[in-house]
Structures are given as structure tokens and as C-alpha cells.
């Protein structure tokens, strides 16, 4: 068992299309289901209300760690950091890194989430519970949105 999550997915879209979907804050919000207040800026916090049905009252925040055009986008966050009464800033967040590689078919996207061992105990149990209630009902009948 490893303390990190790593996934790769092949996307049939060019690198610049995928890059935009990740790093344009409006496009990111479309598929991630969050209404971000403004653009991603390295070193700054990104913030917005979750638009995922049933969780609209929750605020999503992340600290942008890296924006390397067409290559790497990274942020730190607190998985399931959704309790408005808790100050998550005192906890060590996990790091999420997206890396893009062009292929003949489109783009290989790899996502790595690491740093789970630094999450305090009580938050881990909550995170597990939130995940089971919040994300397993996702309907996959989604139509893509294309920006003009």
C-alpha cells in the first residue's frame, strides 16, 4: 500500500485543450463542479462554492503550487475540507499534480495526489465519510461544454 494516488488517462484532445480545461478557472469549474471566484495564480488561493448537486453550500479552496504551461499544474488542498467551523489552514494539505504529455492520439494526463500521511487523524475519518456520501452518486451522462 502506498500513501499516494496515481492515475493516468488518455484524452482524445490536444494538449492545449486539456491544459485549458485544467487551468482556466471557468473550464476547471465546469467539470470539477466548483464555481471559482477567479483565475488560478501560483502562490495564491483558489476558492469557490462547490456546484456538485447536494453540496452547493460547501466552499472549495486550494493553494496553487505550480503552473507550467502545457506541462504541469499543481495545487495543495485539504481533501473533503468542508466543515465551515474548522480552520484547515493549520493542517498539512495533500499535493495534487497534473502532468500532461502529448501523444499521437491526444494527451496523456497523469494525476498524482500525495502527502496523505500528514493529515490529522480526526479529519481522515471525516474525509472518508464525506467521500462516500458525496461523490458516489455521480451520473456519467454528461455533455461537454465547449468555450467559443
Amino acid at each position, binding site marked *: 500500500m502506498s500513501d499516494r494516488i496515481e492515475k493516468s488517462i488518455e484524452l*482524445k484532445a490536444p494538449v492545449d485543450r486539456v491544459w485549458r480545461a485544467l487551468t482556466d478557472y471557468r473550464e476547471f469549474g465546469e467539470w470539477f463542479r466548483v464555481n471559482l471566484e477567479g483565475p488560478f495564480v501560483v502562490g495564491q488561493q483558489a476558492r469557490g462554492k462547490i456546484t456538485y448537486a447536494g453540496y452547493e453550500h460547501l466552499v472549495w479552496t486550494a493553494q496553487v503550487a505550480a503552473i507550467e504551461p502545457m506541462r504541469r499544474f499543481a495545487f495543495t488542498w485539504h481533501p473533503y475540507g468542508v466543515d465551515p467551523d474548522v480552520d484547515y489552514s493549520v493542517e498539512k494539505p495533500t499535493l495534487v499534480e497534473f502532468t500532461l504529455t502529448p501523444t499521437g492520439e491526444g494527451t496523456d494526463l497523469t494525476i498524482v495526489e500525495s502527502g496523505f*500521511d500528514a493529515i490529522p*487523524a480526526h479529519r481522515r*475519518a471525516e474525509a472518508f465519510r464525506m467521500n462516500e456520501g458525496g461523490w458516489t452518486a*455521480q451520473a456519467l451522462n454528461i455533455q461537454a*461544454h465547449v468555450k467559443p
Partner: protein
Amino acid sequence: MSNPDPLPLRADPAPVFAALGDRTRLALLTRLSDGQSRSISNLSASTALTRQAVSKHLRVLEGTGLVHSVRAGRESLYAFRPQAVREAQCYLDAVSAQWDEALARLKAFVEDPGGAL
């Protein structure tokens, strides 16, 4: 959207990750993972570690539920508890599943040339 019933709260896996992050502890667990109970003497014997060091690491492992101890006469025998690893793995699986769903939405978003989200 209806929320499925949340699963019962699992034992907290956070300390497990931290405990596994130490090479010595990982080595001790690897030895214990064959299911055999072993004493501190036995665990120290084939390593360069002192009894004290092994004992210290076993205490951390016991505190996280990765091992448990049973007294056998004058000494304690330590055994691996796979449940702790399974629970930590469940947490990672849950986070992983969430990313699977998010990536599926991203894939649909970038690959579909038409229509509104």
C-alpha cells in the same frame, strides 16, 4: 440527487500512513507479515538495531494498530494486524474513486466537441 447512506465510520487510518513512512518500521512489518508472532529479541536478532530501538518502533506500530502484542510467559510476542492496512487502503480507494469520477467528467468535457454541459 439522493445521497446514498454513508458507510459506518472506519478506524482512522492517518497514523498508519505515518507509521509506514519509516523504513525501520516497514522492515519490521515485512518480517511480521508472514503471520508469525515474534518477540523483541527475535526481531532485533537479525538486524543492527538495539532491543531498545526495536521496542520503540513496535510501540509506535502498536499505537497505530498495525501490530498487537500478546504476553507469552515473561516476554511479549508481536503480531501483524492486517485490518489496519485494509482500513488505510479503503481511505485511499475512496479518494481514488473520487478522482476517477472527476477525470471521467474531464474526459467528457475535453473530448465532446458539441453540446452544453
